């Protein structure tokens, strides 16, 4: 076996896992706490990716790296935050049906725009020209460093989510998800809370999209399908929608299992990897959603156990 070949796939596999963990953690705040069913995760992630790519490649920046990357990443985050504001406003006072169609419609609109605006995005053919904001030697070395940076970013997201659970903000989100009318009767601006949540989480999703764009150094509309949304949802549901670490465990067990164990380590015939494995992956993810939600809806980690948390935080 050629170890060099293995490494590249492993690095990318780890990157996938880390990135989907980040998305699933953000989805945990939306779906797990506030009970907002965001079926358009790919829309915010993809918008960030494309906003980054377009501003990176199409604009003649007067400065070099890493400023070019930082400015474009900021643009990507800002655009995604704006999208979060718009979509958040749209779904804030709608029921589950409305949230579904609003978020799904948004993701579809992003995919359509990316495909039709060919001069900007390269359309269906895709667009290259993205690169790492540094060069430390080989491509693999660059990719590995990018993996480390992305892992730090996702670790920060994890820390944020962990803190949210232990803060008044988290309590507000949980209350909104548990019984919104009751929260409103106590004077809480639940619509504003939901919009704020969408702005923050969408911005982070957009930044993760920009990180992905840099890693693959290519914009491809095929990435704007439903696959990444599915991966985030399955990972979160399997691991435990209501728990901080649910996203981490679930994504490791799903994306980690396929993109690392199966892709890198199982000695399967090469042809399988082009079609059979990816199709099997999606089929099993879909099946996992059905089985988990039927038989153990709260996933591997189970209930929120707020009583334990409050004892830990407040002693009494």
């Amino acid at each position, binding site marked *: 076996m050629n170890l060099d070949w293995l490494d590249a796939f492993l690095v990318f596999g780890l990157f996938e896992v880390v990135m989907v963990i980040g998305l699933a953690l953000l989805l945990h705040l939306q779906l797990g706490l506030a009970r907002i069913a965001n079926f358009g995760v790919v829309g915010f992630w993809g918008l960030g990716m494309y906003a980054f790519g377009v501003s990176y490649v199409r604009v003649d920046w007067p400065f070099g790296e890493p400023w070019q990357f930082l400015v474009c990443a900021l643009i990507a985050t800002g655009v995604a935050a704006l999208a979060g504001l718009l979509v958040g406003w749209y779904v804030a006072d709608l029921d589950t049906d409305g949230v579904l*169609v609003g978020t799904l419609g948004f993701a579809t609109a992003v995919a359509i725009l990316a495909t039709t605006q060919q001069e900007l995005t390269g359309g269906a053919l895709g667009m290259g020209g993205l690169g790492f904001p540094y060069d430390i030697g080989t491509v693999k070395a660059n990719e590995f460093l990018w993996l480390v940076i992305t892992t730090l970013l996702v670790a920060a997201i994890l820390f944020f989510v962990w803190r949210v659970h232990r803060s008044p903000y988290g309590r507000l989100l949980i209350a909104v998800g548990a019984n919104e009318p009751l929260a409103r009767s106590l004077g809480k601006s639940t619509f504003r809370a939901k919009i704020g949540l969408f702005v923050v989480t969408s911005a982070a999703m957009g930044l993760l999209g920009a990180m992905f764009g840099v890693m693959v150094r290519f914009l491809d509309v095929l990435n704007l399908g439903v696959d990444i949304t599915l991966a985030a949802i399955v990972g979160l549901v399997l691991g435990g929608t209501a728990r901080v670490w649910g996203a981490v465990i679930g994504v490791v067990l799903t994306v980690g299992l396929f993109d690392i164990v199966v892709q890198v380590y199982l000695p399967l015939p090469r042809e399988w990897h082009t079609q059979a494995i990816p199709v099997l992956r999606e089929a099993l993810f*879909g099946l996992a*959603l059905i089985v988990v939600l039927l038989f153990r809806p709260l996933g591997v980690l189970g209930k929120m156990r707020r009583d334990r948390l409050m004892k830990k935080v407040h002693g009494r």
Partner: protein
Amino acid sequence: MDLVVQAVVIGLTENAPLVLAAIGFYLLYRLTGLINVAYAETVTLGAYFGMWANTTFGLDFYAVLLPAGVLAGLVSVATYLLVFRPAKRRNVGMLELIIISFGLSIFLRHALQFVFGYPVRFFDVPPPDTIMVLGVGVASFRLLALASVAILALLLYWFIQRSSFGLKIRALASDESLAQASGIRPLAVAVLIWFIAGLAGGLAGAFFGVGSSVAPLLGWRLFLPILLIVLVGRAWGLGGVITVGVATGVALAGATLQFGQGLYAQLLLILILLAILKIRARRLAAAGGVAA
């Protein structure tokens, strides 16, 4: 004027199956209150079953329509008995049910590729005759599609709104225990509804498939338009869904002709229908019926 005539003819003939799919989806939505994402796959499977019957047994298109629809209907019933009915028994909430249906959609979409193969497939049919309608060339099978959709829509409309069985279905939709007490057998009625919905979706899929290609994403691409049509049209019942469906089909055709690009037309329709839904929700909220 020319554009309008073209839009109407093309819109009605090319997008008639969309209306049929919307009707099937609406039936399920009306009965269960659930947005069943996996309905997209009954459309896809209808196309696949039709293509399979066509290429395996050499039957012509019109002969495979019935098997395509019936098989899709059976798959629909199977999903009810194996997934949705058990889910309801376990008191799974509405949000979780939607996610389950999403998982089922993904599962079916990919499992079918192990049966029918990964590449895009095609119906094996001779090129259709072109018939001139109001100065616009229309493929013969599309006229049949329009005619079938119109007939089926009328039949279903009469069935649901006027027949005694339809009354039972509507009773079941509003209050299951009460309906049961009145002697309606919920399981039988539910199975029938899921079958009819699957049949409608499968037929729509076959019509779409013969006109272009048969691919795993066929149904999923239509899901958002179907969902939008039903959510907008449901305020006026089945008639509303049919009307909004027809209007959407014509508008799509017209916008495609205008922009020269189908994707822009889709985007425009999505935004318009989303706006209508939001405006309506706002109006309800202003009247005081706030969801929260």
